[in-house]
């Protein structure tokens, strides 16, 4: 017992020093912190409930993604079979029950059609998995069924793109240090510290920002259109601001130019039209040429500017627009034009996202919480320290040193892991202060017992540590089970609590058992007392 190898002392001291060193940066002001070497920039992050800010949980509908893939597939099939000299006429196209089916008019061409479609259904990855299964039903109908792997892959890709787009949009807003992470298969968590009014952010993320230019079908019969029936090759789209009063309009299915071909979009004013807020857009080379060609061919006809499936406006083409830039008008305020500009610049979302959870904490409440948490922690620590001191004297003091070191080591480990401290995390801290001394209480009570049984000081201390260590280990394993479950299943605040609890369990065993044993042994070796007050 009394021989405590030197290397062990060094190791313990080194561990504690490292823990302390990693804890310190958390307390440094921003300016000093930034000058530290990279390895020392370990800091405990504050959760949104402490720093104030907004938390949004966005969800994409996988059904939407699957539906969109079918629409795209339909488009691809049409183009493919219409291409080249040997056109294959098809009809009866339907995309019901999540499958795409169509009839090949000439039964003799079915095999040829399958041959031409097959390359379209190949997965993009190297897995060799198909995105769609192709089968022929009733010898003339071709059915494309999306595979599970294909859908999963599509959802995954869509979410990756969505995350990037969100990232760009939020950065455009100029907020600092947003956290954007994917969660599960079809969710994205967005956390923006310091953001007070998430309304603008929500509006921005709520826009898919799919911009399309299509020609208006002027041949359509207005009464048919009002009833929602479109001529062949056209479709009916909602047009809330239609000057004619009917909130719908018929447009050609074919897309003239789309928002994918934009290089820039900014808010501006329409000087000719009473300084209305508009969005100025600029096309890239190919887009500009396409736009120029279509506008040249369709002078004096109207075209529709469509955003997320709704027509914003349908201006007349007065002259060919060749410069590659254009103006989008449509009842904007300066703010909404600005938001659309940002959304267009950052690209369209591959899928619409819905906010399914939203939490906002004001900075004042966050600051209050931190202050209350610190006061509570200090009072808790003080109470426990006093209590231990009057109960165990010198040994109580050792336990107290261990508790204080433990607090810093927890912070150090959290900094090292870049963990986030939440309000329940502070509660975890306070609780850890209370339970950390439990190990010492176990040991000291055992030493008292052994002394009462008539063992010598040395033997009692040795037995106390040895016997209690087993109990401490077992008790902490079960405690850690509870903590581990919280970490895995808990969300947000519960997770923050679990992190502190788990780190606290690990570090408290070290400080309360190993560290105090070192000091106790050191003291015993120096003074060799025959009687101890405990």
């Amino acid at each position: 017992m009394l021989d405590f190898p030197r290397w062990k002392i060094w190791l313990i001291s080194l561990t504690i020093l490292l823990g302390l060193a990693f804890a310190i940066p958390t307390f440094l002001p921003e300016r000093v912190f930034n000058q530290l070497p990279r390895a020392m920039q370990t800091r405990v992050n504050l959760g949104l409930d402490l720093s104030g800010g907004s938390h949004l949980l966005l969800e994409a509908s996988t059904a939407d993604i699957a539906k969109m893939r079918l629409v795209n597939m339909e488009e691809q099939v049409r183009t493919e079979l219409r291409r080249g000299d040997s056109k294959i006429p098809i009809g009866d196209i339907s995309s019901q029950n999540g499958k795409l089916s169509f009839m090949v008019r000439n039964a003799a061409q079915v095999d040829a059609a399958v041959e031409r479609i097959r390359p379209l259904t190949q997965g993009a990855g190297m897995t060799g998995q198909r995105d769609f299964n192709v089968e022929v039903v009733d010898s003339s109908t071709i059915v494309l069924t999306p595979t599970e792997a294909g859908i999963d892959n599509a959802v995954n890709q869509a979410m990756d793109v969505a995350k990037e787009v969100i990232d760009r949009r939020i950065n455009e807003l100029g907020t600092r240090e947003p956290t954007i992470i994917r969660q599960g298969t079809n969710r994205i968590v967005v956390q923006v510290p310091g953001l007070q009014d998430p309304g603008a952010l929500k509006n921005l993320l709520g826009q898919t920002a799919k911009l399309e230019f299509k020609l208006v079908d002027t041949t359509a019969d207005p009464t048919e259109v009002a009833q929602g029936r479109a001529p062949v090759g056209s479709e009916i789209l909602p047009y809330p601001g239609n000057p004619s009063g009917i909130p719908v309009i018929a447009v050609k299915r074919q897309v003239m130019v789309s928002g994918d071909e934009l290089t820039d979009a900014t808010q501006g004013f329409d000087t000719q039209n009473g300084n209305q807020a508009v969005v100025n857009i600029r096309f890239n080379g190919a887009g500009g040429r396409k736009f120029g060609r279509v506008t040249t061919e369709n002078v004096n006809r109207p075209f529709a500017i469509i955003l997320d499936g709704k027509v914003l406006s349908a201006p007349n083409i007065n002259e060919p627009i060749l410069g590659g830039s254009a103006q989008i008008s449509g009842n904007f305020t300066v703010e909404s034009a600005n938001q659309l500009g940002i959304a267009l610049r950052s690209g369209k979302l591959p899928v619409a996202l819905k906010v399914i959870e939203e939490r906002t904490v004001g900075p004042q409440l966050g600051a209050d919480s931190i202050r209350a948490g610190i006061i509570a922690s200090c009072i808790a620590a003080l109470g426990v320290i006093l209590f231990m001191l009057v109960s165990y004297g010198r040994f109580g003091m050792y336990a107290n040193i261990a508790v204080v070191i433990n607090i810093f080591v927890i912070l150090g480990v959290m900094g090292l892991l870049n963990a986030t401290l939440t309000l329940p995390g502070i509660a975890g801290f306070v609780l850890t202060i209370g339970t950390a001394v439990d190990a010492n209480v176990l040991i000291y009570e055992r030493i008292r017992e052994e002394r009462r049984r008539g063992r010598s000081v040395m033997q009692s201390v040795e037995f106390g540590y040895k016997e209690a260590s087993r109990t401490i280990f077992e008790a902490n394993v079960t405690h850690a089970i509870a903590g581990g479950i919280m970490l895995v299943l808990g969300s947000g605040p519960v997770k923050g609590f679990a992190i502190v609890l788990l780190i606290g369990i690990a570090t408290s065993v070290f400080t309360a058992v190993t560290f105090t044993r070192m000091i106790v042994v050191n003291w015993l070796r120096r003074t060799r007392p025959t009687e101890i007050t405990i």
Partner: protein
Amino acid sequence: MRLLKLVPDNTNIGFVAVRKIAFALTVLLTILAVAAVGARGLNLGVDFVGGLMMEAKFDSPPPLDRVRKDIDRLNVGDVSLQQFGDPRTVSIRLPLPESSDEGATNALVAKVQGAIKAEYPGVSFSRYDAVSGKVSDELIWNGILAVMLAVVGIAIFSWFRYEWQFGVSTFVAIMHDVLMTLGFFAITQLEFDLNIVAAVLTIIGYSINDKMVIDDRIRENMRKYRKMDMKALIDLSVNETLPRTVMTSLTVTLALGALLIFGGHVLRGFSAAMLLGIVVGTYSSVYVSSSLLISLGLKPQILDRKATGLAAEGERVTARAPVDGARP
């Protein structure tokens, strides 16, 4: 210097003797708790039922009836108001708007905040949560799953580690602790939110900690005093660990008391739940779980069957026998 000793040396309290009363009391309290949950229900927060929660801080304590009328006039659905720790802070809960449009929630928040601001100019809104039904269903399910997994996982651990009797007695005692906590929330109608699930899990962790220490001592004594009557042995073990049980409960209570009083209103429910849990957990450790071992038929001889696995520890204990033998 004379040190503080809360529990005198060598206590000999007959915990096992009163076990029938303790069991009866425990069963009664548990039934009451379950009945309270059944009758009054839990005041589930938006985390678990979905909806919109706003926290408003007024200049001076507002007349709740008037605030309610002000909001009712907006025709935004069933509003529920609750004072939040101090009388100036009020939580306002509303159902989420039917429309799935992104702007709808924003508009609702703006409408309610505007109306209240017009009546009480000094008011400030410090946070708001909007949780959709889908998310709240997941959260409630995850919470139940987490608690069940924790209880079962720990019971299985102590079953493998010791005897099945330990597993069962621990399971029973922890279920009691959890149900009592739920009963407390049903009676006080404090808001039951995500943080409280964390509190319940912590109570489980703490309570199990307590029981492990006593169980561990029982096991040690079973090996030490093979001929001792089980009742006496359990009493001895509980008495031997009593100073530690009291000391630790007190230090944790101290820490939690500080949190309850000074930790701010957001953590108040959490701290209250934890404090109650410590009291209940300590009670069930001392009076219920250990005494239950007798009713479950735990006998010292049981260890003999497992002796091979514990040979190494057994040797150590034998070596100590002369010293220990002097005691009882």
